[in-house]
């Protein structure tokens, strides 16, 4: 019985947890409830994934109102994949969060943070699982608003400014999305995603449809932090509490990419190749610029978290590049990088959180000789960094392989050059950390061996191990991505 309502439970459980945590007003209980909720969410997501593998797409009518009039929750190859990613990252970050948040946020605000965390998780899961276009907006704003609060709880006052900037840009993005959905509703008469896909083929007037596509793409690009709409990201990730950066870096932009994939390929599909709107080419070009420029800026950064943030912008470029190339390998690369980068970046931010906990700083200059004091953490950063570079034996390599393959198949040699350049730049900025941590002497008076506490190391290393593991055993990550890619591209036929 309960198994039938898993799609609803995936969203409802964290949704109910949030006000519960607020009512209980206890930081410790709040953390316990949030962690329990995230683990429950992971179990549900895995169960859903397995069911989709066996039985195909699950369609769940919310409140038993039949679609397309009622809101439908639709779990298919792509959404189940993203559900597992988001819930996995939440489940790993929350145990880590207790000590990290305790060090960075005043204790009277802890319960509020965990309540917002649960709400953000609910929003992200909701975006992924829902099959209704306006419902996506609602959950998008739920996750975004709670995200703004989470970021603003950072101890540096620049977190407030960053949260405000993110609020402005994020709201504009969401509103653009709503405009696009409105235009689509006017043209098709439905808000159900699957229904929209079928009805769109019959629409005669092209211009409103193109306008809708443009609005939705730009709006989501703001949420995805696609260059040049990425301005909010460095500040938001750098000044938020470390656990929040860790979670949001791995999920928020990825889920927005998911929505873009749904709309571009699932719904618009055929219309993408209409002349007058070279959307894929623009996307490819912007991605290429993002990959190179953001990596260059990362190279010049002195703050480790800002470096990782710009690295994220570049890696998001990888994802949208695969999208822009439009063939099966490109889409596979995009989807698998949602997973691979999510795991890698969250691992990195968690490790940096440990560094902040022990040394009080994440400025590169202050981290000289860190490898003596925190060897396990630094080695973790090296391994995860190798995944960013795309060295074989790491998850990032799998993505790169498919991106290069996709570019070669599309005959776009310049993109291969761009990918190579971006990898080398990634090697350069990862190696800045390696040199400073390993090859420089620690400043006099620095503490001797003082590794991050186990409660921080274990979840972080779990993900670092995942980076390496998914570079070898790709049966889940790659196969799931390929299924999703094939399913999306079939919408093109």
């Amino acid at each position: 019985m309960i198994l039938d309502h898993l799609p609803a439970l995936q969203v409802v459980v964290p949704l109910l947890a949030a006000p519960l945590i607020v009512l209980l007003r206890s930081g410790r209980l709040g953390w316990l409830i949030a962690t329990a909720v995230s683990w429950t969410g992971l179990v549900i997501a895995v169960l859903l994934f397995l069911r989709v593998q066996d039985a195909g797409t699950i369609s769940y009518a919310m409140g038993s109102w039949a679609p397309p009039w009622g809101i439908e929750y639709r779990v298919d190859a792509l959404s189940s994949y993203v559900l597992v990613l988001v819930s996995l990252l939440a489940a790993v970050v929350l145990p880590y969060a207790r000590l990290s948040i305790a060090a960075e946020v005043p204790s009277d605000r802890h319960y509020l943070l965990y309540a917002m965390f649960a709400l953000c998780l609910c929003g992200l899961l909701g975006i992924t699982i829902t099959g209704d276009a306006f419902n996506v907006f609602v959950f998008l704003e739920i996750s975004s608003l709670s995200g703004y609060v989470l970021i603003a709880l950072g101890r540096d006052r620049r977190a407030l400014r960053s949260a405000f900037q993110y609020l402005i840009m994020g709201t504009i993005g969401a509103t653009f999305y709503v405009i696009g959905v409105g235009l689509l509703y006017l043209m098709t008469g439905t808000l159900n995603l699957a229904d929209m896909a079928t009805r769109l083929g019959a629409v005669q007037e092209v211009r409103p449809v193109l306008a809708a596509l443009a609005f939705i793409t730009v709006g989501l690009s703001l949420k995805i932090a696609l260059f040049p709409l990425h301005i909010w990201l460095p500040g938001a990730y750098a000044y938020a509490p470390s656990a929040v950066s860790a979670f949001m870096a791995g999920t928020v932009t990825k889920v927005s990419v998911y929505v873009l994939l749904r709309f571009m390929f699932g719904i618009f599909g055929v219309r993408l190749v209409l002349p007058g709107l070279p959307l894929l080419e623009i996307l490819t070009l912007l991605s290429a610029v993002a990959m190179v420029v953001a990596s260059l800026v990362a190279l010049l950064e002195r703050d480790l978290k800002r470096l990782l943030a710009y690295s994220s912008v570049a890696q998001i470029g990888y994802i949208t590049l695969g999208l822009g190339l439009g063939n099966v390998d490109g889409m596979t690369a995009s989807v698998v990088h949602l997973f691979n980068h999510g795991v890698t970046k969250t691992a990195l931010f968690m490790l940096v959180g440990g560094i902040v906990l022990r040394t009080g700083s994440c400025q590169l200059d202050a981290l000289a000789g860190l490898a003596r004091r925190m060897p396990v953490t630094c080695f973790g950063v090296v391994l995860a960094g190798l995944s960013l570079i795309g060295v074989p034996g790491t998850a990032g390599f799998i993505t790169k392989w498919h991106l290069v393959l996709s570019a070669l198949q599309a005959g776009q040699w310049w993109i291969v050059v761009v990918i190579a350049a971006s990898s080398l730049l990634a090697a350069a900025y990862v190696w800045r950390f390696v040199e400073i941590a390993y090859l420089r002497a620690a400043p006099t008076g620095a503490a001797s061996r003082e590794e991050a506490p186990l409660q921080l190391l274990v979840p972080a290393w779990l993900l670092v191990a995942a980076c390496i593991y998914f570079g070898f055993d790709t049966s889940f990550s790659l196969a799931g991505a390929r299924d999703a890619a094939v399913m999306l591209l079939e919408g093109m036929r």
Partner: protein
Amino acid sequence: MNLVGHYSYWMTILLMVAGLYIVVARSNLIKKLIGLGIFQTSVYLLYIAPGKLIGGTAPIVSEQFAVYSNPLPHVLILTAIVVGVATLALGLALVVRIHEEYGSIEEDAILEIDQHTAAVQGQDGQPS
């Protein structure tokens, strides 16, 4: 150029552009939020205006009428208004906190204060 017939769309565009302009061009944080609100209002108009069909009556089923106005956009916009209110509230709360921390709500001034602080911190190597 059907000015009168498409009046609602023209207003939508005007509000949208005006709102966006205020967000971008004004450095006062509260004004930005106001601009954001105006921008969001344009979207409400975009949804609701087409909902009213010519010759359509209130959406209550009755044998006398064949054409009903569409109630769905109203429902959607109620939701969107709620989201807008939440956003505005959060934005204002952030402005209050920013004012507590920085003493100003002008974006330019805040940026300057941050740059100044970063320069000072860089000199004595304080953690961020």
